[in-house]
């Protein structure tokens, strides 16, 4: 955060364009180091002083330390804000000090544990220890840890966090939405028979047909595509809907699910499993002993091909993850510019002067992200189809590349 402070702690002289650019660059630079800085900060704040008598007093001290007296405005920290927004959370932050508590589900070595996330923080959004049935828990940077009564981390306690976090809740809500929409659509088809689609189906059917004809059929081939179509369709609509949900900033939306490593990881892993199990002998022969290649070259080629089998889904994962996460970060960066130039409320002129540009850029990036959201869903589905296509392609006819 040192660079950041330097950037913001300059003189109050009227801001020239040069200085504005300078600040922007410094800020963007600061963003790159923000996660590390945050981690350090976390380490500094994380474990409360063990000399404090009780956990409660620890929390109070912690609060006073952070807030100063009588709710003085917190120092604005763009990096922290952005990381909080793109990360997962155990409660759903609505505004100010209001947030919606979400269920915390913990598996511990002593048994299951279930309580509201509201118990893990006080009214000022500061972590307080929560006495559960088996252990005492403390939320530390969105990570639930078992602590001793004195606040130190309980190293012997084993716990796995199965909480319905913001991302998990959004995920389940999106799944329910997909089920409602598409099963409803299917019911409409059953009622109307072969006549033209109506309502939402009218909008969705061309997309379904696009996935079927232009993604699955063209990449996998007429012979095999039908087997994989249900997965590909679900994949496309799942990624697309979650991308869109992530772009809506107000309450029931806004969780960065596809920009979280878990979603692309699971989807890419399923793709990997499908490719591995659906692959025929032509595919494996191409990997282990490509026909028409001398043995000496095969020594080099085969390891590359084997690596390729694993790298392709990894690239698939990274592409979706990085694109969506980067989109969210850029959006928030432009938005945060307002607060950075207003110098935490000290320079109103700076804030007002920056806001039109910042807003314009935010809107522009948002529109771009709408496109990216659909595009990434398309790309993920298309590449999955292409990988499956190479795995199930039969005979010599399909292997002219």
């Amino acid at each position, binding site marked *: 955060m040192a660079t950041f402070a330097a950037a913001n702690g300059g003189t109050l002289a009227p801001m020239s364009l040069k200085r504005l650019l300078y600040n922007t660059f410094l800020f963007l630079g600061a963003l790159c180091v923000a*996660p590390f800085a945050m*981690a350090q900060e976390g380490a500094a704040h994380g474990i409360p002083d063990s000399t404090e008598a009780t956990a409660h007093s620890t929390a109070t001290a912690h609060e006073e330390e952070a807030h100063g007296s009588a709710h003085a405005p917190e120092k604005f920290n763009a990096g922290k804000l952005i990381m909080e927004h*793109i*990360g*997962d959370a155990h409660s759903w932050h609505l505004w100010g000090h209001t947030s919606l508590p979400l269920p915390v*589900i913990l598996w511990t070595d002593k048994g299951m544990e279930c309580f509201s996330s509201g118990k893990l923080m006080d009214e000022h959004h500061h972590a307080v220890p929560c006495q559960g049935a088996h252990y005492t828990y403390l939320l530390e*940077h969105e990570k639930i840890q078992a602590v001793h009564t004195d606040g130190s981390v309980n190293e012997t306690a084993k716990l*796995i*966090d*199965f*909480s*319905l*976090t913001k*991302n*998990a809740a959004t*995920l*389940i809500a999106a*799944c329910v939405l*997909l*089920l409602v929409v*598409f*099963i409803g*659509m*299917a*019911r409409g*088809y*059953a009622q109307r*028979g*072969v*006549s033209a689609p109506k309502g939402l189906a009218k909008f969705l*059917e061309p997309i*379904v*047909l696009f996935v*079927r004809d232009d993604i699955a059929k063209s990449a996998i081939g007429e012979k095999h595509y039908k087997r994989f*179509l*249900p*997965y590909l*369709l*679900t994949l496309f609509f*799942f990624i697309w809907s979650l991308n869109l949900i992530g772009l809506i900033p107000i309450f029931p939306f806004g969780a960065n699910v596809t920009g*979280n*490593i*878990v*979603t692309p*990881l*699971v*989807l890419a892993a*399923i793709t990997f499993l499908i490719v591995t199990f659906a692959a025929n002998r032509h595919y494996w022969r191409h990997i282990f002993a490509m026909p028409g290649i001398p043995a000496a070259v095969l020594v080099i080629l085969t390891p590359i091909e084997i690596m390729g089998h694993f790298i392709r889904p990894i690239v698939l994962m990274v592409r979706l*993850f990085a694109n969506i*996460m980067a989109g969210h970060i850029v959006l928030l960066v432009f938005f945060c510019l307002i607060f950075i130039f207003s110098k935490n409320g000290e320079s109103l002129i700076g804030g007002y002067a920056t806001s039109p540009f910042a807003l314009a850029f935010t809107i522009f990036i948002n529109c771009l992200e709408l496109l990216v959201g659909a595009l990434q869903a398309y790309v993920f589905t298309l590449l999955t189809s292409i990988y499956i296509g190479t795995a199930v392609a039969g005979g010599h006819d399909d292997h002219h590349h």
Partner: protein
Amino acid sequence: MELVTPPIGLLFWMCLSFGIVVWLLAKYAWKPILGSVSQRERSIEDALNEAKKMREDMARMSAGNEELMRQAREEREVMLKEARDIRDQEIAGAKAKAKTEAEALLGRAREDIRNEKNAAITEMKNQVAELSVIVAETILREKLGSEAAQHALVDKVMKDADLRKS
């Protein structure tokens, strides 16, 4: 590093919910949707094929109609031509017949006239001859009452006969 470390809880929810969604959608959404879409596509294709077939049939039928019409027209032409020929022949025949009949009539009339004339001439000749015999009788009775007058007449006749001979 925290960004790329998958939390186990979310991983669990993701696998669970995505798995359920894929299964449920495959069973209750994609299967009926894709089924009825392909059914509709088939029915559209069938309808198009049928329409095409009907159009071809129609084209074939209208071509047949045209052929029929053409034939009918040709037949009519032929019939008309025949009728005209027959008419012309009839007229010509009638004319010729009328002419010959007229000529025959004329010929007969002329013959009749000639016969009548001949008959009239013959009758006239007979009457003249009778008359002249009567006249001659009368004159002879008058003139040849005497011998001398008879001689004179013989002489005169003789003379006339000579004259007639020359």
